[in-house]
């Protein structure tokens, strides 16, 4: 039979030299190790660059600033300073806390929106939704996850801030401060108008922490939903059935059994979402503004605290500052230029800590039920 023939010939024709095979395997192994080495090099590269440039920033000899004066910044000034004004003339202060506050304000607004909405959406998708509905809604949420962040920035600038926060569609006449009962007019005799604001509660600026924060929250929403839903669905059926067996309703099962059982996964999702919000750049570069939060020098303690917590004003988060420097606000080698590396190092440490904690918690919860 021809079958028998091929059976004998096939191995013969495929026979290869053992040595050549071994060398090939070695080369492949080496190239695979090279690939993995690149990823390790990337991490080391980030740490190396941020570390050396940050140390250069703290150089005791100081650096020229944009105005030609030599500025010396000590790590204590940087990590504990409450004032940040590197791009303006006069006495410069490089305390990073105003930038951290800017980042925190945006991230807190984002999380106040994204965490509850995301978590209860995840509960609905995992516990209540019928499989058919879920199969429709999940891809739509994935579309939201795939929208580039610059689009959310555009949305913040053209929709959230003007329509939701400033209420530009409801403009009111501006009262004349000199004549009571009169309104300001322009040269042509038309009344000048201004947006009414959120029932006049605040006077929201064009660039503000709240608009940027809401956009960041929308961006984080799909992350919170999908990671929390994964955590909720990883809870074994037996736990739910036990709860139903004891007569609990779906609500009680979800809130008292499933959510606590998935808590580590949910907290991991929250931490990773916070890390994303802290590191988000394009939205804050477009919508947050460029004034560092003023933590001191506003008068009384209460005034300082109000200024620190104000959400309706322009803020400068850490990522916003880095973009400002790298898109041409400072010349190479100046103290402002190096300060962006120190800010980037701070940002890197904060996000890395959040991500590492998130991953540790996630790994734990995975081990628990697998």
């Amino acid at each position, binding site marked *: 039979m021809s079958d028998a023939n091929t059976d004998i010939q096939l191995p013969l024709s495929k026979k290869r030299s053992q040595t050549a095979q071994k060398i090939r*395997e070695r080369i492949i192994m080496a190239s*695979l190790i090279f690939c*993995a080495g690149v990823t390790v090099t990337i991490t080391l590269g980030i740490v190396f660059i941020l570390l050396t440039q940050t140390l250069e920033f703290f150089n005791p000899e100081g650096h020229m600033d944009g105005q030609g004066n030599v500025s010396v910044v000590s790590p204590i000034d940087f990590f504990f300073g409450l004032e940040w004004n590197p791009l303006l003339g006069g006495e410069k202060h490089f305390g990073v806390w105003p930038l951290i506050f800017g980042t925190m304000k945006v991230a807190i607004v984002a999380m106040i929106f994204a965490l509850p909405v995301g978590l209860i959406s995840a509960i609905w998708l995992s516990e*209540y939704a019928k499989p058919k509905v879920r199969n429709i809604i999940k891809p739509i949420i994935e579309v939201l996850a795939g929208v580039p962040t610059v*689009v959310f920035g555009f949305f913040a600038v053209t929709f959230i801030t003007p329509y939701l926060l400033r209420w530009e569609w409801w403009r009111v006449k501006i009262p004349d401060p000199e004549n009571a009962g009169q309104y300001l007019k322009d040269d042509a005799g038309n009344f000048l108008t201004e947006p009414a604001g959120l029932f006049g509660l605040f006077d929201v600026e064009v660039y503000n922490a709240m608009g940027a924060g809401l956009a960041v929250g929308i961006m984080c929403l799909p992350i919170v939903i999908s990671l929390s839903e994964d955590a909720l669905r990883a809870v074994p059926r037996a736990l739910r059935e036990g709860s139903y067996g004891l007569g609990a309703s779906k*609500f009680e099962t979800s809130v008292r059994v499933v959510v606590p059982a998935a808590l580590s996964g949910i907290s991991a999702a929250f931490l990773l979402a916070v890390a994303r919000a802290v590191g988000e750049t394009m939205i804050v570069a477009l919508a947050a503004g460029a004034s560092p939060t003023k933590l001191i020098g506003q008068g009384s303690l209460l005034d300082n605290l109000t200024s620190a917590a104000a959400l309706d004003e322009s803020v400068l988060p850490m990522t916003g500052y*880095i973009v400002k420097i790298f*898109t041409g606000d400072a010349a190479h080698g100046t103290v402002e230029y190096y300060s962006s590396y120190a800010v980037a190092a701070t*940002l890197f440490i904060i996000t890395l800590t959040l991500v590492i904690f998130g991953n540790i918690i996630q790994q734990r919860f995975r081990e628990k039920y697998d």
Partner: protein
Amino acid sequence: MPDATPDNPKPKHIVRSTNKRMRSNVLFNSICFGATLLALIILVVLLVSILTQGVGSLSFRFIGALNSSDPHKAGIWTSLVGTLVICLICALSAIPLGVGTAILIEEFKPRNRYLLWLHAIIDTNIRNLAGVPSIVYGILGVTAFATMFGLFGSMNSGNFAVGQTWYDQYQGEDKQLYYVPADGPPNDEETGKPADPSMTLYVPSASGDRIGKVATDLEWVTAEDIEPRVNAIEEELAAFIKVFRAGITDARESRRGPVRVDQASAESIVDKAIQAGTWKNPDTSVLRGKLLELVLGLDGKAGGDLIKARKIAINIAVDSEYAARMPNVITKGAAPVRVDTKSWYHLALPFGRGVLAGGLTLMLVILPIVIVASQEALRAVPGSFRQGALALGSTKWQSVSKTALPAAIPGICTGTILALSRAIGEAAPILVLGGTGFITSPPRNLMDSFSALPMTIFQWTKEPEVEYKTIAAAGIIVLLIVLLSFNAIAIYIRQRASKHQ
């Protein structure tokens, strides 16, 4: 147990009316549903607000036009090409590196304790890398690719380049440009070096390329040589000048009156003059057109302008003859301009803020995503595949490359395409790398500066005018269409793969 009914008041804190509990269940259900609905409503509002703002300025002209500082003329083509080029560079670098790393981590788990420790470090490292903000990768990209730690000199004058040819550009006497191959980039003392006639010369080809056919009868003359030649031509054109002068003098109404010419009389003056002359350049149509324009311009002018017009006519005629009689003449000692042509693979160290650096920076951003996706795809392949191959006597690599990898390829493709769509939408690292340079043309070589879709959208959104906001919205629509088509490919691959299994 009969006493476990809800009505039985056993432990006090559990007692609730069933009605109330059911109501709270329904309420919770509707709150949860409302939250999910909110996410969907946000997506709809987002898309509708962008569509209403942008759809008006979306047109084929907008897609095909280069970027411009005028929002009504600006188009997206520059950034679209830039985005596709950096995406290609990103894919070509990230896919081999990412898949290779994933194979090493998933398929070659070491047995040695220390190696196992190293293995775990790499694995954790990749998971944490995925959470690093993209702007930090941008900073890494600037330092590692654009400036290369300053190891190869500054960005503008690196000391290594390939795919770049330098020429000395000379202006010929016939207004044509000639190129002599030169050694390298200009130094301050090197510019202005006198021409060496022994070198091979290139004239521009019709397509505007600098490298054209070799000029054969090339002549290098000194500045003093040119004057007698011009005089000689003027003498030869004596007959033409005489007839022309007579023609425009006749066109005056009286000795002191203004010149009166119309189309017909101007044509007859010019044609008569041209017929009187002897021309080396057989094609006199260009000359005729220029002279006609000159004569028609004389209508209504006084005597002084006639003398001027005569001189101009002589210059036009001499120029035309000069170009015809002396092609490929270059004045000796003229200062050349050092210019270069770059082939698409032009490569210099350091990379500078070009497309190559941009693509590699995006590679840094998506590499962890590609690795994690490939790892998951490889993990999903049943171990029996590999064990079967190993049992048949294959080596470790053979079992991976012939069984596990092919089975994982749909998953890897899906993950990679989704990672690439992340790269397309990523703006922060490119913004840090490319700055806010105003780029109008798409990149022509690997070192050329570029603009990408999200970067252009960012720059347009930053502008305060409403016109820029509308074209930014139109740009977003283009970006979303590109992303949707990428996602559609990923979904298609996923579905095809699930059908096969």
